[in-house]
């Protein structure tokens, strides 16, 4: 198992603190992510997922209680170079369209690498590589206007812009929301490849429990700004009653498995993915 590279301990955060509009977003969040892991962050809306993600690349730093360590560096320590950290930890926002800064797709993806002061050729090759990685043909897309893109294409371009920075850690805030099922599969394949081939560590916020079941090594559940449940997807997602009490729902496959067991169908284990359920039903029929 890899070393711990992201660590959040007892983190508290209040937006607009000291004003009448103060809103408590985090009140005791914990998170541990090891190198090379795909960690999922789930929770009902307003649970603090997106806020926590912003702490993981130093966009927010602890001002109240709590401690955040990224790649061995305490983000509250004034000696920590946060902009250097942000180059190693890329964040793809939920509102992808807000992340697109340039008129042309090629310039947008090149934005980060240019900031790094890379040579023209290197920038170009990174742009092409990143666009290909997200399933967009560079020759068709570099000269497209960013505003002419569909919602799904914008998400891919935003992701490409972060990948072009070659981050060690990738933070994704609902990166597949709004993508069609095929696009979602492509992004899943891409994330697995980044992890397998380049050892990239990934933290993803998702509302899609099927996605979490298919992709994640660990799941952290937030509720009202606190970490309330942690574990492997096979432990966390197979507890429908617990999940619903936390404002979440089980993946459809788990719901089906439960309904079958309740109806008296002999089903062994806790199938979480579709193939696993088919196998468990098949075994149940033979048995």
């Amino acid at each position, binding site marked *: 198992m890899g070393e711990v590279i992201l660590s959040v301990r007892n983190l508290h955060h209040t*937006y607009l603190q000291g004003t009448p*509009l103060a*809103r408590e977003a985090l009140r005791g969040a914990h998170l541990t992510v090891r190198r090379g892991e795909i960690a999922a962050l789930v*929770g*009902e*809306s*307003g*649970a603090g997922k*997106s806020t926590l993600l912003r702490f993981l690349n130093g966009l927010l730093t602890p001002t109240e209680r709590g401690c955040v360590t990224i790649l061995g560096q305490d983000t509250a320590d004034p000696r920590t170079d946060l902009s250097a950290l942000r180059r190693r930890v890329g964040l793809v926002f*939920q*509102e992808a*369209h807000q992340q697109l800064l340039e008129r042309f797709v090629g310039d947008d993806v090149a934005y980060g690498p240019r900031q790094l002061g890379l040579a023209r050729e290197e920038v170009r090759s990174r742009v092409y590589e990143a666009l290909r990685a997200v399933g967009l043909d560079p020759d068709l897309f570099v*000269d*497209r*206007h960013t505003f*002419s893109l*569909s*919602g*799904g*294409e914008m998400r891919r371009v935003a992701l490409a812009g972060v990948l072009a920075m070659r981050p060690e850690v990738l933070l994704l805030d*609902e990166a597949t*929301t*709004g*993508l*069609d*099922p*095929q*696009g*979602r599969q492509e992004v899943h394949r891409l994330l697995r490849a980044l992890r397998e081939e380049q050892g990239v560590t990934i933290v993803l916020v998702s*509302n899609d*429990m*099927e996605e979490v079941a298919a992709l994640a090594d660990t799941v952290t559940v937030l509720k009202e700004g606190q970490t309330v449940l942690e574990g492997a997807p096979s432990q966390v997602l197979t507890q429908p009653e617990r999940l*619903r009490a936390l*404002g*979440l*729902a089980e*993946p*459809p*496959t788990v*719901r*089906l498995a439960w*309904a*079958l067991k309740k*109806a*008296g*169908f*002999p089903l062994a284990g806790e199938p979480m993915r*579709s*193939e696993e*359920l*088919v196998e468990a*039903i*098949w075994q*149940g*029929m033979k048995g």
Partner: protein
Amino acid sequence: MADFLIRVEGLRYVYGAGSEAPVEALKGVDLAVPRGEWLALIGHNGSGKSTLAKCLNALLLPTAGEVWVKGLNTRERAHWLTIRQTVGIVFQNPDNQFVASTVEEEVAFGPENLGLPPAVLRERVDEALEISGLTALRQANPHSLSAGQKGRLAIASILAMRPECLILDEATAFLDPLAREAVLELLGRLHQQGMTLIMVTHHMGEAALADRIVALAEGRIALEGDPRAFFADEAALRRLNLSAPAAVAVAAGLRERGVALPPILTERELVEALVNVKERLWAR
């Protein structure tokens, strides 16, 4: 003849027509939506779903072809107000449509502009907040809400206009699972009350709830039918690279292993069918 709320004939739409790089989003769509129908519009990113939705309430006007809402052609500027009151759209990025500083004012904004008496306005706002579960947040600033809450607010502010047809352009995409269930339940109730619903979605479980599914591919209708027939056409689904709801996928996996199952659409149907199969096996 059926009472069609919306009719679309030979609809083509080109973004940036006359520019260097025009993009043809719709390449000839024919569609008729009967009053009271729950229609799911699916298809890959860039297939033209959102463009079609925007053509249905005159936000976009056809490059070629015609769109009629209640018999009114969307090309006629004089009909726009009626058309937009008849067909309300809830978008994917709710932030783009918020104008007020509190949730309550946001919901009141639309009906206020209809010049309703204060008591009626109050009632509509209260009702819309209640059904969307936002009553407790009525004084909150829309921009301070979470993504899921924003999604529900966007629906509430359209509902307060009491449209005859509600179009949801991936409006459930950002909702957490329980909020999504709540919105779907709300849609079920609106459907029972006779509202026409058009739901643009990537979620096959959601599409299965509709009366009819229309799949777009590259600006044209590629497949349509009631959910049962639609998801039974496995060859077409594969060709169009569309996935199936969980129960349909599991049933398909079992059939591949030689298990004889009746047509399956819902989770309940799958459970019943499997319990039946098991009982027959036990009886032997």
